[in-house]
């Protein structure tokens, strides 16, 4: 009869003796750390030695056995039953029996969740219903906050101006460093890239026209809106989402305060207010960056800014600022909406934040496209 002794790095050893009945002796500690390395080999050795016959497992040399050790014993039991064999354990203490009990009890327990396997028609119906509910909740939110905004215009004293200023400071003033960096680099890159091409025709001075019109009408508002979405839209969603998870939104409702008026209106007003200001600031910094580059190409700053003032008029500036205000409205609204739609748990806040940024960027791009068509039609 072949007898093999195995010693794992952990202190669980086993030996197997073939025969009728086959015998397996376990010795040492049986815990989560010691059974792992020998788990597969113990089960395989037991199957090889016993086949469909009886297996006697001797535990008399086991010095310690906890729940994980019992898991191995239970797996031996199960594996023997699957082979059509039998298993008998010698030296089982009361404590080991106690650890084995939950394994035996858990056998055959079925999930309390209703079966998920539904016909395609049911899944389609559920899918359509979910999309419908989503659209309904967005329309309801737009109606709710539209009415809150009208209320704010009709009764300005009811607006929480303190909160509005606090949000405006966080979304606007505190964003100046990043806005400065991005706008400056945008101006530098635009000027540099176009100057290289224009130089071939001796038309470097027209770089001022190109940069000014692009920044004021298009890139200034667009870049600021994307920055606002990443910085403040995400913050609005996370703040309101966390309040939702902590039931603070419910607390507002039960205190008779409308969460939309209390939480959303200040953020939307702040968004609409700071977006044009940030855009104006970004335009100036961008033009400054471009002017510095052009100085390197031999065009004095005075000449550059003279050219800028000839190239653009007030309509270019105001149309860009108007777009920025609309983008600010979209970013703040979608950030607040996603925050209010937050489910439960920390992961839900993360999902809301991601969704707020992605939705805001999509809406900004769509709105920008619509503005392009509208301004063309209106010849602005």
């Amino acid at each position: 009869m072949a007898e093999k002794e195995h010693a794992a790095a952990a202190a669980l050893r086993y030996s197997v003796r073939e025969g009728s009945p086959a015998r397996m002796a376990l010795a040492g500690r049986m815990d989560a750390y010691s059974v792992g390395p020998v788990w597969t080999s113990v089960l395989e050795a037991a199957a090889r030695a016993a086949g469909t016959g009886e297996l006697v497992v001797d535990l008399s040399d086991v010095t310690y056995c906890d729940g994980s050790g019992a898991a191995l014993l239970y797996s031996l039991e199960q594996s023997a039953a699957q082979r059509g064999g039998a298993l008998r354990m010698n030296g089982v203490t009361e404590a080991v029996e106690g650890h084995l009990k939950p394994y035996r009890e858990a056998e055959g327990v079925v999930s309390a969740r209703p079966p998920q396997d539904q016909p395609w028609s049911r899944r389609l119906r559920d899918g359509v219903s979910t999309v419908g509910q989503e659209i309904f909740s967005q329309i309801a939110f737009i109606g709710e906050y539209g009415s809150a905004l009208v209320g704010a215009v009709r009764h300005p004293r009811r607006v929480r101006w303190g909160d509005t200023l606090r949000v405006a400071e966080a979304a606007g003033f505190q964003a100046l460093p990043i806005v400065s960096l991005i706008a400056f680099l945008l101006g530098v890159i635009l000027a540099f890239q176009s100057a290289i091409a224009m130089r071939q025709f001796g038309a470097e001075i027209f770089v001022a026209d190109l940069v000014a019109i692009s920044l004021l009408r298009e890139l200034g508002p667009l870049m600021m809106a994307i920055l606002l979405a990443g910085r403040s839209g995400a913050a609005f969603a996370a703040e309101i989402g966390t309040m939702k998870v902590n039931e603070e939104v419910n607390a507002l409702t039960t205190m008779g305060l409308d969460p939309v008026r209390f939480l959303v209106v200040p953020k939307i007003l702040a968004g609409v207010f700071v977006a044009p200001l940030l855009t104006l600031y970004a335009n100036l910094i961008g033009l400054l960056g471009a002017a510095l580059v052009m100085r390197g190409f031999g065009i004095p700053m005075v000449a550059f800014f003279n050219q800028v003032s000839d190239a653009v008029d007030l309509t270019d500036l105001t149309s860009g600022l108007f777009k920025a205000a609309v983008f600010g409205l979209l970013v703040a609204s979608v950030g607040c909406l996603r925050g209010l739609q937050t489910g439960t748990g920390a992961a839900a806040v993360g999902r809301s934040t991601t969704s707020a940024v992605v939705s805001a960027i999509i809406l900004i791009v769509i709105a920008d496209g619509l503005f392009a068509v509208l301004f063309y039609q209106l010849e602005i």
Partner: protein
Amino acid sequence: MVDLNRAGADGMDDDEAVIRVEDLTMGFGSMVIMENLNFSVRAGEIFVILGGSGSGKSTLLKHMIGLYSPIAGRILIGEADMARAEGAEREDILRQVGVTYQMGALFGSMSLMENVRLPLEVHTDLPLEAMNRIARAKLQLVGLAEYGDFMPSEISGGMQKRAAIARAMALDPKVLFLDEPSAGLDPITSADLDQLIRRLASTLGMTLVVVTHELASIFAIADRVIMLDKETRSIIAEGDPRVLRETNDHPWVRRFLRRSETEDQSA
């Protein structure tokens, strides 16, 4: 390796202390909460830390599990000083203790099964099948085997606390720390949880350190209690709560354990 295997399940000396707190002074910065605490927790017992709100019960628990460092003194888990253990020694101690927090602290993005399996995945070489089997048995132990594929947000607060206990037991710790296990639960759920705690100690030989101020739970589960006092920043009573209720002279202890409205009624 630090070895706490002295619990009843091993048939070793039950009277031996698994945790010894010696001259512990704790606090935050210059604010001292408790001074010169001395007590020990015996293997296999349910040891309850009592005290009024703000007396430092949970802070003491967090010191015992090594989340906070004491201002002075030692917390010996087995033979190792939890306050000063580092690296591998600290990991050894932490593997032998399980902790559940006041709010359950289950990971919301994982199912109950995945929550319970996580410590096994991190610390052992067990194959997936074995980890699933163990996780399922732990959930069965707390009566949640059929909820393994549920997310924490889909189950009640009481179930979350039981699932948190299952996760804390994944590696079969020798000592289980429970912070306010029955807080916010209805009396029936709370009584079920007390029963579970008793069962863990009696059938699995686990040592439990419980922070609570639920009077019904204290008498249902505690073998021994210590009572912390915010005013004197010390332990004002130690022993069997049933005996303390009848014999202790300290008015606050009597009032606490009898739930009297005034000092006169309890005296």
